[in-house]
């Protein structure tokens, strides 16, 4: 999957498409297999980028388990009965204070006026080629499907030990305290097996998500990742080889003291290097070059691909032959 961060508007339609499909009950209320967080920020679960996991060469790195209330956030009940039906009862509010939640830092961002900045980062399981979760499970309860690479937890084998949660550097495995087992994004395999794209991708109103096999040369993922090299994995330094890629965000120039644009992008390049590694510099340069072409009225195959004129062209779910 490729997610174009220049097209993500943070509407959370993907989040809700996923939640209503998979995680709206039975101990999953706090879980968001797909969510969109605002960067820079601590994200969801809180501070996941400093919670360990991943690989150090061929050794798994230790990781920390996120806490339910403090790091995920317990979904609040609201005072609907009083606020909506009793005169003078005050505004609609959570009945108990929340400590955290998905996109708790909505629109917070960083930087000072007039050079503040933020962008949205949708996150889901990366269905890694070298999944740390799989390697960390002492029970071989996690497997990666040969045919399509989807990483799944066998619920019959899982006993809720949570080594996978600690080992995942993206903290995209969730322990279900009601079921006593760990759960994660299924990459909508029951939909995919019927030829229907993942709910998060199919429902994306910004047409930000492309899905195809990396080795399908006609697919958008291959063209963006290996052809144009403008789509990059998040935090590649963890060594898990993610299969979700991001087109990094461009940003308008900062203003100097006199209010003139400086030419320096508001989102510091160094921050994007932290997230996507050194290759983000070249990716941003290619994007800028191709955008400039279109501004001059010239053709750009890359821009046509990212614009995604036809929704159906964004998804190629049949594996390539051979």
């Amino acid at each position, binding site marked *: 999957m490729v997610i174009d961060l220049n097209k993500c508007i943070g509407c959370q339609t993907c989040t809700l498409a996923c939640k209503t499909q998979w995680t709206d009950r039975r101990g999953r209320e706090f879980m968001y297999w797909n969510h969109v967080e605002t960067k820079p920020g601590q994200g969801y679960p809180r501070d996941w980028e400093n919670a360990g996991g991943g690989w150090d060469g061929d050794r798994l790195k230790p990781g920390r388990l996120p806490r*339910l209330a403090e790091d995920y956030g317990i979904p609040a009940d609201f005072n609907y009965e009083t606020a909506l039906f009793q005169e003078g009862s005050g505004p609609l509010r959570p009945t108990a204070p929340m400590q955290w939640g998905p996109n708790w830092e909505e629109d917070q961002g960083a930087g000072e006026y007039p050079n503040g900045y933020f962008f949205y980062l949708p996150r889901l399981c990366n269905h890694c080629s070298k999944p740390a979760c799989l390697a960390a499970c002492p029970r071989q309860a996690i497997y990666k499907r040969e045919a399509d690479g989807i990483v799944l937890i066998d619920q019959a084998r899982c*006993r809720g030990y949570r080594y996978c949660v600690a080992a995942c550097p993206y903290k995209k495995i969730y322990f279900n*305290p009601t079921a006593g087992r760990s759960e994660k994004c299924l990459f909508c395999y029951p939909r995919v097996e019927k030829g229907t794209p993942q709910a998060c991708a199919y429902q994306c109103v910004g047409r930000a998500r492309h899905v195809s096999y990396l080795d399908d040369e006609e697919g958008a993922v291959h063209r963006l990742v290996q052809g144009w090299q403008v789509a990059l994995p998040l935090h590649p330094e963890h060594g898990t080889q993610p299969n979700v890629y991001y087109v990094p965000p461009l940003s308008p120039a900062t203003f100097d003291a006199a209010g003139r644009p400086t030419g320096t992008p508001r989102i510091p390049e160094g921050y994007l290097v932290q997230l996507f590694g050194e290759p983000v510099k070249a990716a941003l340069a290619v994007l800028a070059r191709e955008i400039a072409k279109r501004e001059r009225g010239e053709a750009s195959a890359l821009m046509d691909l990212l614009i995604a004129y036809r929704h159906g062209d964004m998804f190629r779910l049949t594996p390539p032959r051979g």
Partner: protein
Amino acid sequence: MTVPRALLLLLALALPAAAQEKTIPVARATEDAASPDAAAWARVPAVRVPLQPAFPGHPYISGTPVTAEIDVQALRAGRNLHLRLAWRDATADAEMRDTARFADAVAVQFPVNGRADTTPFMGDARRPVHIWHWRADGRTQQLLARGFGTAAPLPAGALRAQARRTQAGWAVVLTRPLRARTGNLEGRRTMPIAFAAWDGANGERDGFKAVTLEWWRLRF
């Protein structure tokens, strides 16, 4: 994953001689003793069983378990075997409601073939082990294991547990009919037995546990 098999082999070779000493006599009673407070327990001597860190069986399992010993009492009443297990545990972790917390637990293990030549480290493919597992959130399970990472629940059986917080920790009585399809104890004079305890507050679960590194023996 590389298991230091040489270490396992050394430990296994050391077992038979040591096992002779480690005996837990099974007392007899007529009344029910399924409660840790049952009067019958006052007449049954407790055997103090020291525990050591388990060989974890997987490289991602690390940490030092805290439980140092379990006091074990065994009682046969009618068709049932009662095992009373008491150990120190400063905090009661009896819930699984948080994503970062673990419940206290205790378990006993028997070789399915009834022989002490079965490895006490979760058995192996040819010689499985049978486990009675109690967890402080109320779950009680019988499991069958054929090596590290293979423990699987048996169909709901007749294992029951009653637990109580004591001043020092937990007292749990595991009760099961002697006669059973898996792990039958009826008619036996002795039976190898091993013990394990998990302190939830220390993050202990799975192979992160304190155990007996060799078989003890129940003497009926």
